[in-house]
């Protein structure tokens, strides 16, 4: 059963992003009110706001957690052209009693000349690396060489995408067969450069990122992009939120031993769903890549699942208030109680950005085999 909890987020303006931490016990929200709030889940399942502070001098677009191996660390990015890294400080005992904690700024990244639209940490096996993308089409990759010193970050790479960037996603695969790979989505209205999704791959020899692929079939503005967890497969799966939901499979083609360029991929479209019938804003995978959640301008969250024949189908629809959608033509309706659920709570889908409230998908069920 979907258990929808309404949390009065008390943001004074639109909420743009929600992010669970690695274990699904903490959550961060960010807003046009320029602040970030951190929420902790108590033992009885209630969410309490344990920190709320002004982070930028403009709307905060995205917020993201670092892997807990690096401590309690957040990154945020904003319309004010900066990204920032925050670390939680263990507070005084009276703070703990009040259930409050403090976050201090470790660094501000000011290299961008335009609004910074997304910020993501790279997979932990790459070290402590932070990536931003901006409206001016530049993707920047920073590294903190000393993971104990979060104030020191060096700009390692600048990738010029030629299109205004809206979102980025790292391939989480730590396999040695897969060099680091990042997907960049664009919401640029420019029609000259057709493909709005670009894939960049790190080259060990040149020590640089080079473009490996452009998804030419994605021509509409891309709002969100997400690599699926890898599961030891040779190919990659990428979900895209654009005018519809799309899932692509990228199959690396065998490289000749003399080839020094980036990997060539065979691009296959696995699924395409226009059920939202409107712009899709977020896509989010569960931890085993067996379930994809999407949210759209129709105010609904949809769940997508592949059966054991690898056919993708919609397995659930939630309205903006967390209740299941009933009576919709041909779509599965209310889901029922199960033993456990397949979507790990460490994935979140933002739905309904009306002022001050965040509806969150807290738990969900599984789907059919058909």
């Amino acid at each position, binding site marked *: 059963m979907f258990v929808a909890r309404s949390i009065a987020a008390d943001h004074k303006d639109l909420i743009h992003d929600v992010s669970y931490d*690695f*274990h*699904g*016990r903490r959550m961060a929200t960010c807003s046009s009110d320029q602040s970030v709030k951190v929420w902790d889940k108590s033992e009885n399942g209630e969410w309490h706001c344990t920190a709320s502070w002004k982070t930028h001098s403009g709307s905060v677009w995205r917020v993201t957690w670092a892997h*807990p*191996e*690096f*401590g*309690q660390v957040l990154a945020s990015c904003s319309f004010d052209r900066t990204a920032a890294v925050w670390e*939680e400080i*263990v507070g005084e005992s009276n703070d703990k009693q009040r259930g409050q904690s403090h976050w201090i700024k470790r660094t501000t990244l000011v290299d961008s000349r335009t609004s910074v639209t997304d910020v993501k940490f790279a997979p*932990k096996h790459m070290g402590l690396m932070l990536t931003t993308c901006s409206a001016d089409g530049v993707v920047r990759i920073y590294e903190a060489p000393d993971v*104990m010193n979060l104030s020191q970050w060096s700009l390692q790479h600048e990738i010029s995408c030629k299109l205004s960037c809206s979102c980025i996603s790292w391939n989480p695969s730590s396999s040695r067969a897969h060099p680091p790979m990042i997907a960049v989505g664009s919401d640029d209205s420019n029609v000259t450069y057709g493909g709005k999704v670009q894939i960049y791959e790190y080259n060990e020899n040149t020590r640089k990122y080079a473009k490996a692929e452009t998804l030419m079939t994605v021509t509409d503005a891309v709002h969100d992009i997400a690599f699926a*967890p890898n*599961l*030891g*497969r040779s190919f990659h799966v990428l979900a895209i939120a654009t005018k519809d939901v799309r899932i692509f499979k990228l199959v690396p083609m065998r490289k000749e031993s003399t080839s020094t360029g980036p990997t060539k991929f065979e691009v296959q479209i696995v699924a395409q769903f226009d059920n939202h019938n409107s712009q899709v804003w977020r896509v989010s995978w569960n*931890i*085993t890549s*067996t379930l994809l959640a999407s949210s759209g301008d129709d105010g609904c969250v949809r769940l997508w699942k*592949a*059966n*054991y*024949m*690898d056919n993708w189908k919609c397995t659930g629809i939630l309205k903006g208030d967390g209740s299941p959608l009933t009576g919709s033509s041909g779509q599965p309706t209310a*889901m*029922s*109680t*199960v*033993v*456990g*659920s*397949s979507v*790990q*709570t*460490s994935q979140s889908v933002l739905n309904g950005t009306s002022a001050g409230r965040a509806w969150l998908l807290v*738990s969900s*069920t*599984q789907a*059919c*085999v*058909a």
Partner: protein
Amino acid sequence: YNYFNWDCLLQFVKCATGSGSSLIHVVRKDEDIYSPILRKLFNESHHIFVGLQTIREDLPSKNKKPQFVSISKSYRSVIRACMEELQQVVSILLAIELIWNLCEVLFIDAVPAGSLLLHLLDWVRLHKADVDEKAREVLQSESPVEHHGYWDVPGSIHTLTEFDVKWRHWHEEVDRCLQDKSFASNVHLELICKILVGDEDTLLEHKELLSTWYHFLVTRLLFAHPTIKPTELHYYAQSCMAMFLDSRSAPETLDSILLAAFDFDIHQVIKDCSIALNNWWFVAHLTDLLDHCKLLQSHNLHFGSNLREFLLLEYASGLFNHHSLWQLAVDYFDHCPEFGRVYLELHIERVPLDTERKALKVLRICEQRQMPEQVRSICKIMAKRALRNNRLGSALSWSIRAKDAAFATLISERFLQDYCTRGTFSDLDLIDNLGPAMLLSDRLTFLVKYHEFHKLYGEKCFTEAAKLLLSLITAKIAPRSFWMTLLTDALPLLEQKEVSQTHPHLSLGLYDLTVICVFWSFQEEDIELTKVELLRLALARNLAKAIVKEGTVDA
């Protein structure tokens, strides 16, 4: 047994005495018996209770009475709500037991003709017994099911063919009697005979006694086709269902599933159950058993190498969300050869490490399965958390377990800084008992050895202490920042008679190094001049003594 410490708390201790064994049993009330439905009862009734207490005492009883009645009804409505939920659960369980039982008869036991019908009879009777006691009584009085004494015969004496011949002979005879109207005088007898020959219309006239089409099916088979073969079942199942159900109403999901089972279409049964039932539990476990019986064709797929693995992976993934059931999931992943391991890796690293105990549990699972990356990661997370909370000892032991030399170095530095500021060490037990683990990082080794130096000094083993101090400096594991501290420690040693007089070599060695250090220290910015002066004085005096002693010994 001696009972003591009994009180209203949930724990009491029971001591077994006698027979040579002294065991302490700690018995705790099992909290898991408070199922979600009972918890709902407790939660809802709590609200009602609190509401009741707030009814004002000073109101006249005629005002209070309607409120009391209303509260009473509220309590009852909560009871009914819980009952309904439980009934839902029970009816789902009944359905899956019914389906599973049929699958066992047809697929797993794969009962051949002859005993097939007996098993189907048991199946129906068990279901009826589960569902409707009263109906069973009625059935028993009217139905010849109980009067099948002749059924004892086939299994024991006759072969199936012999039985078949005899039965057909008997059947023809009864049929003939009916045609002849031999029993026309007795309506009841005629009815019984019609039933006995399996006359469909007669059976259908007594539909209300046969609550389901499959009961009708088995009854009809009992009287009309007792030696039915498994492969013939589906034809009769179809026709019985069609005859029994209203033509208007579509078959329910349960009916389709049973029909698929009678069709021996295992995949359809699994598929229909997956859609119809609200949990993976049933299909996962049944499919696994069927797979062991080698009844499933294998497909090569992406999500699990076959259907069995796919379903088990789904089921176990669901368990991982639960704060304690996740441990069960581990065994399921262990038995999924294609993707079980990677699923386990992905799930287990997300288990919230609420307590040390839970973290250790998770670690044990990872270590048993050779998952070094997950072990390292979990230990690192715990070490980092401990460091944040200034629990240096805990942070150190976690980083040792993570084999994280860099972090161990960092924590050792913190220990040493602590010592410099406070003059004492913390977590001495841990540092003393590290054993070979201390070799993880130079700084850690230095920390352990430096503490050892202090211990030796405290025990007045000055010679040993001096030797250790010397080796610490010569082995270059002492950090430069610490040399001043070491030299300050060396000072009193240089004064000790035991060292200067009995071990002049040692003393000279110390002297050599302290000279070097002192010269070095002049190049450093922040030196404490008084300390350096003291050192120079001590060195000079000591050198004098040593030279004298050396000279004396040599001579």
